[in-house]
């Protein structure tokens, strides 16, 4: 297993870029894949992963565990994930604070869970089951959401902290998701981040979103189809400055993919922000 260096900046590995990654070996700190796309060991995706993975530290990010579901984790899914993880030994394995399947149906989406004690206990049981089976820690990512339930016992960051404290899992902080949810539900990004346990954050996601007008109101949709917005860059800069976090950072882009060069350039913005903050720390202001 190749460890990912502290504060490394990475990009998502997508099939459209396989050959370009092999040919140009871009200088990024790590690559992240969507685990489910590589479950079939005879697929083209798997073939390319075998060529590319030896050259980069890897992070495996899933959407299929359905950790927030009231039903047990799919053993079949977990088994396939373990085979993949055992084969490639990625530095990190992650999934979401959401549910995506029920009664045998899969919705291919990150559906919201109510932040109640019952849902918390259920989520904790599921995370424990996954970590026990994989024999390793996983990270949990905060989702973008478009609705809130009337019934709740705690806020989202409090819910996440509880999961981390009671399971030992790490956190994957998606700052675009925090921003999208904050606009959609009218809460303060800063207050959200003030509650979150930053020591547990091991990875940060940055992505682009799309703005829609619904019922004459603004709603942001987490589309991963464009550049990271300036608002999210500002939050990222402030977050790093406030917390001195050494979490790694991923630029996520899944739809209407740009060229590999452009994606690497976008990742370079994160590198620049980190470098500027480091210089500021190393060169304190001269006092008169």
């Amino acid at each position: 297993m190749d460890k990912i260096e502290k504060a490394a900046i990475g990009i998502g590995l997508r099939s459209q870029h396989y050959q370009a990654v092999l040919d140009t070996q871009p200088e990024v700190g790590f690559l992240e894949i969507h685990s489910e796309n590589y479950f079939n060991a005879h697929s083209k995706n798997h073939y390319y992963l075998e060529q590319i993975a030896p050259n980069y530290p890897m992070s495996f990010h899933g959407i299929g565990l359905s950790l927030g579901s009231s039903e047990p984790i799919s053993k079949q899914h977990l088994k396939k994930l373990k085979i993949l993880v055992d084969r490639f030994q990625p530095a990190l394995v992650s999934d979401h604070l959401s549910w995506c399947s029920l009664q045998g149906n899969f919705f291919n989406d990150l559906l919201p869970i109510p932040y109640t004690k019952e849902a918390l206990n259920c989520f904790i049981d599921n995370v424990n089951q996954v970590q026990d089976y994989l024999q390793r820690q996983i990270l949990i990512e905060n989702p973008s959401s478009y609705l809130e339930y009337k019934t709740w016992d705690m806020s989202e960051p409090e819910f996440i902290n509880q999961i981390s404290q009671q399971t030992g899992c790490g956190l994957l902080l998606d700052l675009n998701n925090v921003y999208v949810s904050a606009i959609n539900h009218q809460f303060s990004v800063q207050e959200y981040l003030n509650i979150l346990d930053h020591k547990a954050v091991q990875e940060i996601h940055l992505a682009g979103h799309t703005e829609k007008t619904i019922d004459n109101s603004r709603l942001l949709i987490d589309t991963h189809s464009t550049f990271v917005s300036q608002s999210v860059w500002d939050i990222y800069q402030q977050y790093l400055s406030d917390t001195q976090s050494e979490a790694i950072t991923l630029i996520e882009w899944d739809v209407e993919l740009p060229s590999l060069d452009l994606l690497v350039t976008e990742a370079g913005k994160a590198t620049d922000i980190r470098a500027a903050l480091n210089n500021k720390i190393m060169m304190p202001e001269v006092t008169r």
Partner: protein
Amino acid sequence: MKLNRLQKQFSESLFYQHDEIINTIKETQSVSPLARLQVYRNSFIMGVTEALAITYQHTYALVGDEFFNSVARAFILAMPPLENNIMTYGEGFNEYLESLPQLTEMPYISEMARFEWLLEQTSNSQIENKIFDTSQLALVSESDLGQITFQIPAQISLFKSEQNISHLYHMLMTNEVLESDLNVPCYLVLKKQPDFRIEIINLQQSEFLLLKKISVGNTLGELTALGLEQQLPSLLENKLLNGFTIHKEKS
């Protein structure tokens, strides 16, 4: 409300069975609960439709954007994904298309979908590199000869249609649509290559029938009447067989 009941209501609302879940959604001064729920409904249908459009790209090209999206939506609601992995979704789409009255006069559309599903399965198959050592056949005793069953490599699939799907596929791939009679049967072998291309081999009807019998485990004794002797060299040349076993009846 219990978590399981809430999630059941949510999933039923994604299938448009009812809207009861909106009673659990916080009301705001901006976007209504129903509109917020609709974001998830749209995301579910659009995300899965996108996966279908990738697998069935040529079927999509044949029917166009509007019709494909409308049929995909109906298919997804009737036969949703069952595995927590969208990569495996799409089986049965051809049968769904075949059942649509609007497509009765265009049977090649559902046949193209059936062909594309098989293409996808073939491209995800294991490649067996074993080479048929024909000299081993000479070592088989005469009494066992009739009990031989041949093996077909895992990277090979068989496709038969009453429509000339191979011709239609070629036209779509080359973007050269020519006036042609599609009501001509085709007998195809789909063979995965190490570079993940799928080689498409057109067979004679007799060759196809023979391979089909081999694929279901018919013995040499049962195949002799189908002209195996004449067709064996061509099957071996195309590497459509990669070995044999002697089938012993259990006593």
